[in-house]
């Protein structure tokens, strides 16, 4: 057996996952077919807010193929089942029960009111139309500010208010900085802006689905979920199913982006119904259902104030947020805006900070985690207002950033929000980005086109960012009232033939974990990449875990794997010493081999695996096993950062925006697989650019979602996006042994403000200082027109 010499980490390995995905030999949840399997379809409320006066399923029950129709009264006769929320952000947070099916009231268009069980999916869907529901319509509650006004209609009457919680951080109170009111009142410049984070749909390509098999000793739940382990715990807590009687499997999962973090009422329905009928059941939603009923993201109103001295030195930052939770608390929904609280100060040294967030209930689809969760929102607001401040001061936006950012030699640096950034080099990333972009030349061209009154103007958008990545430190999460920890689990088994099985509690849904983890294991043990198999997404093989979100799979899950590998090497060492007849201290482990120092005498870890299997000749008292378990809980987050530059051309006569070039330099610390990293950045950029230019979930005044299909919700196609120039600097994280920082959200976080800053920059000479997202041609054209009109007015 040969040991690898060339390190795997850092290599652009093509993915192990691809073979099954490019040949169609996949295991999507919807592909699962079990003997006797029945199909579920959910009847959803067409109204945003209403009392249910009656439900009559009798006609539906008579239809061909229909086995049963259930309402809340059938599935939850006591009215005691409530969908879980794992993040009660304050002790007094309002927590209305979210039923599995609405019983008396519906609180958003799309909420389930009944479920049909039939022999085929088509028959189940046919029967939905035959269920008669009478509603007594109530006034919808859609606007966050109106929802908080005195006398507003209430989403949950029993609460007496539409307020969910108010969460406050104040640097003076926390001892992390000064008093913000004092800063604002004593500064030379105070700039206040309101930004709106429109509501977005995560829009994973595979709709949600689940299958429950109640036959056999355990209930088995397959689900297109990001969080099989959390789902198992939550299902056990919600339905009282003994945890050891429930196995959850996330097979191939077609994208998540935070949108598959929720625990679904449909999963609970399927568990209950499979239990009642004793037969396997499947629920597979249509895209229109996804748009209505899968959670949405963002949806905040951000009032942000910065203060500065005339030379541009920042003196204070105040943020007041309204966050739309939709009709109920999602699994982590109330905590999403709180995550942003730590990122508004971004890469800047700001001496005083105040943050207050009010979470609001409305009669809309729930909001919850969506790629970046809180951090893209925060980065957008600070990067937009820094650009506005630069304009106010007559400074170049990069120069203003440089004046205020934390310098490379100042790390580790404790911010005004109380986080300690371990490492960073904003200077290096910015210098590289400027060079790749051709910043100075583009600025010259911009000036020329302005002077020439070119109908197509050029704008340059700057965005710098950092984020708290690798959502983990359990103690920190505890201090924020999150209901769970953030550790991750791994186990590693050397098999008799020298192959390696590694299990991770992280759960992949397209990121390439099998490849990246294999590279890590190959280096740690010195075994060939091909000899490593990664198991994940099954609570039986990976018996515990915290799953995948917030770029934690590498910087938390990857480190757990490293720890597990170290334990295996430690277990192998005395065996190697025994076999080589030397002292343990005389052994060196390198490239998969234990070598007696200064000699040719050696054995490989793969040979030791066979010796352990045979167990004929082991040292006394040594357990015949090369298996290990490890759980890693980091002390701190990691803090990737980057500089993104966007050149946008804006046709001032039509409002059309086209991206001429996009350059980003991300610093994500040590890179495991550059191919995977580049792909993650591309995808993130596309998502962030889409927020800036294309996407928005819109409700009409009745609360109906008018962007309920891909025909109305503008997910960009290949024809809508440019090619990106991506590059990296590498400043290793000092808080984990791999030096990695995480990359999943980088592109999404930084690109939205870069694009909006570019467009505003292109049309600033018309008096435009903001345009609401998404920057549709109509919005841009109107901004130019109204700006131009007021300019004309000023000249007269």
């Amino acid at each position, binding site marked *: 057996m040969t040991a690898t010499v060339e390190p795997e980490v850092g290599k652009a*390995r*093509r*993915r*192990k*996952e*691809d*073979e*099954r*995905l*490019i*040949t*169609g*030999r*996949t295991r*999507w949840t*919807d*592909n699962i077919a079990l003997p006797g399997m029945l199909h579920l379809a959910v009847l959803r409320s067409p109204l945003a807010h209403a009392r249910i006066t009656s439900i009559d399923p009798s006609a539906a029950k008579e239809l061909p193929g229909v086995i049963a129709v259930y309402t809340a009264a059938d599935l939850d006769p006591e009215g005691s089942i409530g969908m879980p929320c794992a993040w009660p952000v304050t002790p007094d947070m309002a927590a209305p029960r979210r039923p599995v099916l609405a019983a008396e009231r519906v609180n958003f268009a799309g909420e389930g009111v009944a479920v049909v069980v039939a022999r085929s999916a*088509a028959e189940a869907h046919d029967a939905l139309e035959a269920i008669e529901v009478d509603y007594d319509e109530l006034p919808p509650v859609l606007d966050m500010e109106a929802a908080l006004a005195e006398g507003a209609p209430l989403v949950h009457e029993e609460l007496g208010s539409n307020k969910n919680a108010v969460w406050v951080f104040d640097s003076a109170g926390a001892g992390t900085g000064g008093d913000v009111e004092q800063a604002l009142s004593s500064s030379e410049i105070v700039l206040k802006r309101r930004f709106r984070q429109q509501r977005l749909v995560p*829009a*994973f*390509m*595979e*709709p949600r689905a689940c299958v429950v098999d109640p036959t056999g000793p355990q209930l088995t739940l397959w689900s297109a979920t990001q969080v099989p382990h959390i789902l198992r715990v939550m299902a056990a807590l919600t339905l009282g199913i003994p945890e050891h009687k429930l196995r959850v499997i996330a097979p*191939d*999962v*077609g*994208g998540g*982006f935070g949108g598959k973090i929720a625990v679904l009422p449909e999963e609970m329905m399927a568990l209950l119904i499979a239990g009642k009928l004793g037969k396997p059941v499947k629920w597979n939603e*249509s*895209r*229109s259902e996804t748009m209505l009923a899968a959670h949405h993201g963002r949806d905040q109103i951000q009032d942000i104030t910065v203060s500065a001295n005339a030379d541009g030195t920042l003196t204070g930052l105040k943020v007041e947020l309204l966050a739309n939770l939709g009709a109920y608390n999602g699994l982590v929904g109330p905590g999403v805006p709180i995550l942003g609280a730590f990122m508004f100060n971004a890469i800047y040294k700001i001496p005083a900070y105040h943050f207050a967030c009010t979470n609001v209930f409305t009669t809309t689809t729930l909001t919850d985690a969506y790629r970046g969760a809180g951090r893209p929102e925060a980065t957008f607001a600070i990067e937009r207002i820094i650009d506005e401040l630069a304009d106010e001061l007559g400074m170049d936006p990069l120069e203003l950033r440089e004046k205020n950012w934390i310098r490379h030699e100042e790390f580790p640096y404790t911010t005004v929000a109380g986080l300690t950034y371990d490492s960073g080099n904003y200077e290096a990333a910015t210098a590289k980005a400027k060079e790749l972009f051709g910043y100075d030349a583009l600025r010259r061209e911009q000036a020329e086109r302005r002077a020439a009154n070119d109908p197509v103007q050029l704008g340059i958008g700057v965005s710098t960012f950092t984020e708290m990545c690798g959502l983990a430190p359990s103690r920190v999460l505890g201090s924020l009232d999150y209901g769970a920890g953030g550790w991750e689990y791994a186990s590693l088994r050397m098999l008799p033939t020298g192959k390696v099985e590694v299990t991770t509690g992280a759960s992949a*849904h*397209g*990121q*390439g974990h099998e490849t990246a983890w294999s590279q890590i294991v190959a280096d740690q043990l010195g075994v060939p990449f*091909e000899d490593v198999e990664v198991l994940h997404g099954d609570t039986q093989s990976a018996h515990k875990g915290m799953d995948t979100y917030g770029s934690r799979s590498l910087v938390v899950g990857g480190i757990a794997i490293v720890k597990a590998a170290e334990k295996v090497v430690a277990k192998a060492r005395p065996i190697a010493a025994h076999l080589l007849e030397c002292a343990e201290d005389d052994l060196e482990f390198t490239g998969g081999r234990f070598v007696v120092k200064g000699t040719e005498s050696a054995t490989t870890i793969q040979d030791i695996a066979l010796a352990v299997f045979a167990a004929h000749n082991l040292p006394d008292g040594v357990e015949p096993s090369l298996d290990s378990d490890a759980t890693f809980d980091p002390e701190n987050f990691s803090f990737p950062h980057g500089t993104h530059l966007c050149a946008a051309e804006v046709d001032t006569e039509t409002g059309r925006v086209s991206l001429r070039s996009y350059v980003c330099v991300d610093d994500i610390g040590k890179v495991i697989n550059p*191919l*995977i990293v*580049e*792909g*993650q950045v*591309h*995808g*993130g*950029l*596309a*998502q962030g650019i889409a927020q800036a230019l294309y996407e928005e979930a819109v409700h009409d005044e009745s609360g109906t979602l008018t962007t309920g*299909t*891909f*025909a109305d919700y503008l*997910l960009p*196609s*290949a*024809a809508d*996006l440019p*090619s*990106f120039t991506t590059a990296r600097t590498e400043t290793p994280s000092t808080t984990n042994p791999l030096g990695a920082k995480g990359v999943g959200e980088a*592109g999404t976080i930084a690109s939205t403000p870069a694009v909006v800053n570019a467009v505003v920059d292109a049309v600033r000479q018309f008096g435009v200082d903001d345009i609401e997202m998404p920057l549709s041609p109509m919005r841009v054209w109107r901004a130019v027109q109204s700006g131009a009109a007021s300019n004309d007015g000023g000249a007269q």
Partner: protein
Amino acid sequence: MRITVTVDGSKYTDDVEPRMLLVHYLRERAGKVGTVVGCDTSNCGACTVHLDGHSVKSCSVLAVQADGCEVTTVEGLARDGRLHPVQQAFHDNHALQCGFCTPGMIMQSIDLLADNPDPDEQAIREGLEGNLCRCTGYQNIVRAVRDAADHMSPGAGPEAEQIKHVGVGGE
């Protein structure tokens, strides 16, 4: 209604409801679950297959319309254990992440190259306009199609389309 369809080289004869969509026929009757459903408005293109050699969104074709036709799905592309060059190019260029849109993307890319064997970036982007991907930002997909164009003679039949590469896995 009784229909006879050749799917990936095998002949199937079945009684189907007139309303059954081709994609459901492929998944539920022919067992071709490699072809997936991503939306219900024919926008996403995840269900793209070839019908008598041309790409169609199989959610916008009735199974009965495929009577007497030849259908090729992503499962019918690899021959004799060798990947189609477009499949190989998707792997080589990291043109997929979650992989849900991938079968449709690959089928559409093959049709695009049959129409235009030497497309530039813009032509590739426009040719893939009907297929949505949420993971990749499309850049590597575009690169893969261009790479495939350099490695194959599209439309020249299976032999000419099966050149240069062997199998998946490894560098």
